[in-house]
């Protein structure tokens, strides 16, 4: 039914502010509340209306906080009556809505609830906004009496008061809940104290800390219950003297500092329910309401026990660390300090923490004077580059004397521009002393090496030269160079022992030692300016502490002199023998010619003398020959023409050669059996041996005896050739020396028998160099049997060999 209903009810001025004020009450769309229903009941009865409403008008609707006689909870604002009420002041009355052009077409009039009579009073907030109405409605037209109007007004005021009250209650409850939540969630223990010092509430943390439940403490005096009275008294006394006023030993002790506007944080020991002390850091702040009135105090207690434990732990750990742990705060151009110093400060600086609490001056003074400037410089440098700091310096310790310390620290730049260092200082005096000792020893070793007349060269596992002493430099005419071992012989001009053939690099003694060999007396030559220096090298591998080879070292002795002497010695004998032979040739030749009668008959009176001369020159020649032989043999320079041949013909030859000589002394030589065996010998030299043995046997043989010569198989496939005589045998004193040079020289009776004294020595060398052995058996008084053994060879080995 379209009519002249205004589409929008007229809006009150300041509508937005009004709406805000309404919302402030947080009352829209809330549940029914008894207090408000009481009012609607009252006003309906008093005004004798079937309907009474407490309505609140917001932007779009009117909403009923309390309704009596009406089903609807709300109606649209444009058809509401109350919207008019709130525009004005005082009661808005409509005696007959159907007659009122404003409402005649209103659906609430034309339809349910068929309103005829309306009377409402605005509900005005304290700040002057009409939030809604308290109204009464009837279905018949009528009017309110004066009393009814008055009642309506009064009850309207009550509704407003209820709004306020309700709001306050909610706010309170909210605050309380918030407070409680805050308190409970606080890690610290929080106690809320009334102005008179009694506890009004505590949080869960406080309950745990103090061992009380909230109920136990509420209403009790904070100071009396949780504090030690002596502590309070002491503090009270101090405060009293500080302030010049008497402070009582009670709650005032805690609150007094607040009066100066100070926030106080103090350490206290609270009393646990079980009587033990709980160390806490206490903070008290006052609560003022909006009128600056003191409402109470908040006391928060930070549990220091945990902190104390941590501190103790830190101390204990720090005590284990040898040295001083520290935290150092460095401020450029300002006072630096040590926020933390472990007890090691005594061991390092001989100071106590207290001495350094205010200034780091004592530490600086403890540092050895010469090291102070470098110390500061290094700190500055590390601070500016924020790099880890490491510095060794000396300290004049009051108890220990001069000590060496090593300081290390890592920096952390702080927001305020300072640098916080975390570090450790350790006493390294012992280590330093060892280091110095080691350095001294190394220096001494180095000098020794330099002073040696031997060349010492060492290298590491890769062949890089690590030591090249003075003598080495002298001999090579070079310094150590970075070259691989393959280049050494060429660069350092190394030759083989002959002084000119280049040395293959693998044969360099140092290289051999590098490959694990222990080299002894390797002869090489070092050439410098065309001259070869002969050296004998001993080289060994070097091992590290892990047992692995980590290099090699060679020591070389100059053997040039030795070699020169050896050469002279070698040549001496041949030189001398040559010199001796030359005149001897003439002597023997002349005598031979004369004695032979070639130059004519020799007068008898001269014969004997000439014979003597001849014989002796012959002896001299034999001696020189023997000397030369033995020298050659010992030098290993005798030339042997070895050939595998039958033994028997050799023995027969010997027999023939020496028979005449033997016949001069005895009945001669008898050759007994000889097996058909092959030996490998130089025939000429074997004859020399046999002649020696046979002539010796002849010299000692009794005239009526024979000399026996025979051969027989011996052990290990050898053959033994023996020469036996029936002479006096070998004397006991002789037995050990018989094969030595000139062994018979002492023995007077043998001197007559001629011989050079070298025969057996030569025979021994000859036999041994032909792979044989020589020996004798003799019983004094029963002759002697000289033998030698040679290896035999299978048939068909008739090869000629030459062995030098």
């Amino acid at each position: 039914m379209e009519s002249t209903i205004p589409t929008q009810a007229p809006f009150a001025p300041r509508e937005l502010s009004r709406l805000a004020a309404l919302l402030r009450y947080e009352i829209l769309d809330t549940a029914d509340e008894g207090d408000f229903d009481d009012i609607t009941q009252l006003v309906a009865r008093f005004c004798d209306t079937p309907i009474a409403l407490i309505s609140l008008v917001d932007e779009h609707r009117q909403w009923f906080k309390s309704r009596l006689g009406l089903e609807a909870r709300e109606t649209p604002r444009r058809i509401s009556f109350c919207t008019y009420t709130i525009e004005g002041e005082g009661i808005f009355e409509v005696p007959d809505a159907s007659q009122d052009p404003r409402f005649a077409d209103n659906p609430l009039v034309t339809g349910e609830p068929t309103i005829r009579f309306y009377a409402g009073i605005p509900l005005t907030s304290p700040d002057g906004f009409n939030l809604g109405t308290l109204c009464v409605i009837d279905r018949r037209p009528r009017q309110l009496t004066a009393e009814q109007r008055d009642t309506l007004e009064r009850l309207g005021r009550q509704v407003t008061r209820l709004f306020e009250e309700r709001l306050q209650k909610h706010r309170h409850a909210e605050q309380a809940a918030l407070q409680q939540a805050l308190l409970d969630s606080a890690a610290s223990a929080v106690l809320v104290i009334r102005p008179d010092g009694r506890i009004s509430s505590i949080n869960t943390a406080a309950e745990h800390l103090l061992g009380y439940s909230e109920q136990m403490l509420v209403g009790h005096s904070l100071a009396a219950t949780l504090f030690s009275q002596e502590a309070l008294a002491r503090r009270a006394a101090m405060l009293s003297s500080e302030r010049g006023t008497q402070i009582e030993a009670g709650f005032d002790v805690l609150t007094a500092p607040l009066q100066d506007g100070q926030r106080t944080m103090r350490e206290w020991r609270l009393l646990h329910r079980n009587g033990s002390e709980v160390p806490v850091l206490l903070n008290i702040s006052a609560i003022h309401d909006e009128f600056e009135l003191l409402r109470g105090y908040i006391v928060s207690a930070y549990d220091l026990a945990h902190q104390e434990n941590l501190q103790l732990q830190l101390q204990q750990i720090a005590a284990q660390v040898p040295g001083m742990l520290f935290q150092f705060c460095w401020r450029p151009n300002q006072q630096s300090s040590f926020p933390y110093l472990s007890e090691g400060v005594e061991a390092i600086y001989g100071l106590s923490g207290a001495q350094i609490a205010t200034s780091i001056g004592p530490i600086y003074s403890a540092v050895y004077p010469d090291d102070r400037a470098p110390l500061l410089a290094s700190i500055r440098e590390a601070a500016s580059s924020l790099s880890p700091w490491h510095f060794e310096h000396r300290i004049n310790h009051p108890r220990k004397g001069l000590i060496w310390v090593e300081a290390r620290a890592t920096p952390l730049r702080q927001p305020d521009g300072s640098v916080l260092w975390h570090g450790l200082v350790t006493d390294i005096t012992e280590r330093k002393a060892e280091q110095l000792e080691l350095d001294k020893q190394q220096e001494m070793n180095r000098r020794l090496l330099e002073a040696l007349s031997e060349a010492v060269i060492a290298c590491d596992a890769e062949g890089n030269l690590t030591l090249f002493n003075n003598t080495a430099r002298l001999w090579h005419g070079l310094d150590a160079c970075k070259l691989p071992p393959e280049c050494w012989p060429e660069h350092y001009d190394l030759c083989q022992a002959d002084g000119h053939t280049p040395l293959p690099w693998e044969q360099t003694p140092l290289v051999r030692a590098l490959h694990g060999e222990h080299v002894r007396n390797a002869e090489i030559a070092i050439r410098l300016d065309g001259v070869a220096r002969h050296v004998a090298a001993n080289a060994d591998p070097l091992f590290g502490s892990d047992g692995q080879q980590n290099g090699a070292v060679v020591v070389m002795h100059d053997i040039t002199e030795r070699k020169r002497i050896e050469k002279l010695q070698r040549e001496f004998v041949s030189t001398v023998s040559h010199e001796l032979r030359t005149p001897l040739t003439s002597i023997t030749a002349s005598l031979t010619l004369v004695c032979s009668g070639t130059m004519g008959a020799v007068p008898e009176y001269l014969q004997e003398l000439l014979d003597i001369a001849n014989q002796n020159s012959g002896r001299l020649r034999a001696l020189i020959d023997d000397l030369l032989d033995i020298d050659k043999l010992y030098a290993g320079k005798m030339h042997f023409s070895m050939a595998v041949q039958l033994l028997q013909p050799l023995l027969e030859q010997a027999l023939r050669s020496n028979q005449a000589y033997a016949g001069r002394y005895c009945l001669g030589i008898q050759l007994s059996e000889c097996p058909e065996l092959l030996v490998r010998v130089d025939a000429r030299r074997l004859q020399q041996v046999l002649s020696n043995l046979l002539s010796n046997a002849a010299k000692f043989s009794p005239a009526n005896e024979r000399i026996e010569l025979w051969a027989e198989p011996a052990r290990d496939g050898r053959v033994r050739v023996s020469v036996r005589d029936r002479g006096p045998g070998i004397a006991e004193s002789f037995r050990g020396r018989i094969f030595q040079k000139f062994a018979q020289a002492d023995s007077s009776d043998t001197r007559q028998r001629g011989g050079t004294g070298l025969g057996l020595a030569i025979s021994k060398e000859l036999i041994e160099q032909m792979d044989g052995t020589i020996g004798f058996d003799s019983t004094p008084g029963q002759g002697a049997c000289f033998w030698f053994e040679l290896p035999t060879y299978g048939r068909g080995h008739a090869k000629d060999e030459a062995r030098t």
Partner: protein
Amino acid sequence: MTELRRILHVEDDPSIQAVARVALEAIGGYDVLSCSSGAEALANVEQFAPQFILLDVMMPGMGGPETLAKLHERIDLKDIPVAFMTAKVQPGEIELLRDLGAREVIIKPFDPMRLASQIRVIWEASRQ
């Protein structure tokens, strides 16, 4: 076969020179020209025209081998056997001396009684 008559002997030691000469002349019946040095030998070799040359090895100044080399230049030694005489017998030296063209190396001290026959043996061997 041509007979051996003239022998040139080069030896610096007078004693050995004398002994050798006796050994060769008295026993061997040869004509011997004794020279005390290689130079002297070179000076006389063409005129003497030896059929055999006996050379000492160790001589001051020009040694035996050098003398031999110089003799080669002076005369044709094709048909003239040369023997060295030496007391120094290092291994290999004998080979060396033979390599120089000597037919034989006679070791000192030599046997004066046999020297002549030693020479003859060498002479006869060279004729073949």
